[in-house]
């Protein structure tokens, strides 16, 4: 819809000019009038100086800025480098250890195809595309619900948030599920006063999000509330019921599916609630502070721009509060939701992206309100953007280093292993993915508790059973510590080298121990 008004202030060329006055010679000069018609035309002044609706120019300018944000998001995800995380290995063919328990087999099937064609990098690239598309959809629904300024702020805040960046660099099912959830929200907002089909289509899309990742179920109530709210505002109660039906059914099916699929699964322990709250606070604290500010400001005053909304009346404060609740509540309850989310490995914080995605629109409102009408306080916006960007960059980099980089250790081990040899490692499966000369029959995992535990391992090391031992320090289990102590204790082994790596900002090392040589001497007899 274009409501831009143009005002032409140029002289009206081509219009019939007023007849030139004939010089009346007979009339004395003193009676002649000096008032003449102006040679230009002043149009009627409009009531406002800005067009209240969307203009094509504004839309394209916004999309141009959005492209920049999406590019930035892609680059910030791309800068995160590490070897395959335990969660990623679960999704990759040949490396699945145990059951894939965070979603159905749909994503692993998609990943298999991509992995076969482009390897791990290809699957991660796919995640980045999913996340960038999700940001694009977020912009779209925020713009439709509010305006471009909010859309850009929401997309900007979400695109640099740590969970967004990490999920965009992980070959896991989260990114696809998040994109499908974003698709459901977008369809809901698309149908608000228009055709029925997007609201109907939102149901299967939301169901698919849960099929890809079971925990997406926790975010469907928000989408359901959203469809009711936007439909109620623009249509009748009956229409709202119809439009919400598809999502309602999808939610019920998802809930049953979730219970069936997750019952009987032995999932790893979830982090403690205090840790969940601390992580949530560190990662989404600032983001949600802007969101809550946005909610307060939006509930107080509906008008989003410098000009009146025109014919469309403002939504009621109750509606506005409910809308903000629908968007913000999942993010506010994230720690509780994540408690029930099966997590592979220790990477639970990227799961905050689901809540952040929904909250982003209100965060956008908050940012816009901070900057104020007529860009009254751009410095506040700049400060907020810098803070969000800096936090997102630091936190995502930290999170992406929370599992060891196995590439270096794999390269070193490739040069050390031989066809005949017996090797011991904390968990050789972790670096086997990156090794060229890996032969699983040669390796024993301490994690599998061989030799009847620590005592048996100590005895094996005293006998020199293993030609080479790889152990991560600081150690993670009693068995590993016993092995390390034994290696250092009796001089049977010696550290060949250590391959250090980062775990967050801590330094850990893969130590490689090899058998010591027996003392030799060429000295004459004594």
């Amino acid at each position: 819809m274009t409501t831009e008004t143009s005002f032409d202030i140029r002289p009206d060329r081509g219009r019939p000019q007023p007849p030139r006055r004939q010089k009346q010679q007979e009339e004395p000069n003193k009676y002649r009038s000096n008032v003449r018609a102006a040679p230009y035309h002043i149009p009627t002044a409009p009531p406002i100086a800005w067009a209240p609706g969307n203009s094509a120019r504004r839309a394209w300018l916004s999309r141009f800025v959005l492209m920049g944000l999406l590019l930035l998001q892609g680059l910030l995800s791309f800068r995160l480098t590490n070897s395959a995380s335990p969660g990623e290995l679960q999704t990759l063919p040949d490396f699945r250890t145990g059951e894939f328990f965070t979603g159905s087999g749909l994503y692993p099937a998609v990943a298999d195809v991509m992995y076969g064609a482009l390897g791990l990098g290809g699957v991660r690239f796919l995640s980045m595309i999913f996340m960038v598309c999700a940001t694009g959809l977020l912009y779209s629904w925020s713009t439709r619900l509010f305006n471009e300024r909010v859309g850009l702020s929401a997309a900007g805040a979400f695109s640099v948030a740590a969970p967004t960046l990490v999920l965009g660099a992980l070959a896991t099912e989260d990114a696809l599920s998040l994109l499908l959830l974003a698709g459901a929200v977008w369809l809901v907002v698309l149908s608000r006063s228009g055709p029925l089909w997007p609201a109907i289509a939102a149901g299967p899309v939301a169901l698919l999000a849960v099929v890809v990742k079971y925990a997406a179920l926790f975010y469907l109530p928000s989408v359901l509330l959203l469809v009711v709210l936007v439909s109620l505002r623009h249509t009748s109660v009956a229409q709202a019921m119809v439009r919400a039906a598809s999502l309602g059914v999808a939610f019920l099916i998802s809930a049953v599916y979730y219970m069936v699929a997750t019952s009987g699964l032995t999932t790893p322990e979830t982090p403690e609630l205090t840790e969940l709250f601390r992580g949530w606070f560190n990662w989404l604290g600032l983001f949600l502070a802007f969101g809550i500010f946005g909610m307060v400001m939006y509930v107080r005053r509906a008008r989003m721009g410098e000009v009146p909304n025109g014919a469309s009346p403002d939504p009621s404060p109750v509606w506005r509060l409910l809308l903000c609740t629908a968007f913000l509540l999942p993010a506010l309850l994230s720690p509780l939701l994540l408690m029930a989310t099966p997590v592979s490995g220790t990477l639970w914080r990227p799961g905050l992206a689901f809540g952040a995605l929904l909250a982003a629109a209100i965060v956008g409102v908050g940012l816009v309100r901070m900057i104020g009408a007529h860009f009254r306080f751009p410095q506040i916006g700049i400060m907020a953007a810098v803070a969000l960007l800096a936090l997102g960059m630091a936190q995502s980099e930290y999170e992406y280093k929370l599992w060891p980089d196995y590439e270096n250790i794999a390269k070193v081990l490739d040069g050390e292993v031989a066809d005949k040899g017996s090797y011991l490692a904390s968990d050789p499966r972790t670096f086997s993915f990156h090794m060229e000369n890996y032969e699983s029959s040669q390796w024993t995992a301490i994690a599998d508790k061989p030799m009847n535990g620590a005592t048996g391992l100590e005895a094996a090391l005293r006998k020199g059973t293993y030609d080479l031992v790889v152990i991560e320090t600081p150690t993670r289990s009693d068995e590993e510590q016993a092995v390390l102590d034994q290696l250092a204790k009796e001089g049977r082994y010696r550290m060949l080298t250590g391959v250090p790596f980062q775990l967050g900002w801590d330094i850990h090392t893969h130590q490689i121990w090899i058998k010591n040589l027996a003392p030799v001497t060429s000295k004459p007899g004594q």
Partner: protein
Amino acid sequence: MTLSRGLRVAAFTLAGALALAACGDPALDRDAYHAAEKVGELKAVDPVDIRKLIHPENEYLGLAYDNTIDSGIERMNEFGEKVGKPHNLLKYFEEVGSDFKEKENKRVWEAGALPFADVEPMEGTLKDYIDGKYDDDIRSYAIEVKESNIPLAYSWGHEMNGWWYPWGFCSRGGTHINAGKPNEKPRDEEDIGIACQGESKENTAEDFAAAWRHIHDIFTEVGAGNVIWVWSPNTAQSPGMPAMKDFYPGDEYVDWIGISGYMNEPNPPTKKDSKIFQNVFGDLLRDLRSFTKKPVVIAETGSTATLRKADDVVNLFAGILFEKKTLPFLRKGDIVGFVWFDVKKEEFGEVVDFRVESQPAALKKYKQILQTPKYGNHLGFDPKQLIDDN
């Protein structure tokens, strides 16, 4: 709501949220980030395997010089030409805090010798090292050593059981005279109790062992496995000192026992002393062998004798090659080499000349031993070739 009020709310929200969010997030620890970054950027290399260098078949022939490493290489090569055999262990001295001189050490290695860094913690106290005050310096040094990927013999705080260095033993301002041995009277001014009386430093044997372990842990943390750890006590173990074992960080932290001991000019000078090797090194070696079986290198030796220097040279070689015969508590092959401190210097206000070449007869004897196949065949080797033959 007025604009200014809105601004205030916005500013407070932003500042408050930022402060809260940043609170306690390990991701925002800038110092830790920069410390980890150095390690994270290390590239994988095919690690040098130094096992054969720890207990080689032949003996190390070592030299120690003051001044720069490059001048040491030059003087080592000159000396090798004089005695007709290249030397293969070059010791140099440097202070903690200086960078690892990768190019110079690589030149030593290329010249056919194992570089031997004697690192002196001239700054700070032992407790500072234990508390991690110098961790950054040590970590940078360890990373540079690892990246060089050449073998390095490394001795930190040598002669720790003497009172004369800042890191040397001295506790309770000398009030511990004859601790544990109340019936024994202080013998001379070298007695540790007298020597460090009034000294402000407070270094215990346990402090030294703990500082050593801390430094070793940093090297291990960055994965520097190309280091031969040389723990270097002095033979001057005077009354009132704690047991040597208390200075020892443990077998898992040490590769070589490096002993400093000198064959000094007696008064009046004599021509011979057939027991000089036993007298200088015997007591300490016996003590050390009671708690460790690690190979021994004579990490610093020399003779200040004039008339006796040639004899000292003979006795040193005999002690090294026939250690079991000279000191029966040793096993054959226990001593893996020696380092001759080939320097003329001023010490305690007196000019002392440790150099072999200060006495032509000593130089001649030195050369003669090396040229005699019965002995010379067991002395010296090319460490680089030994590793490359793997």
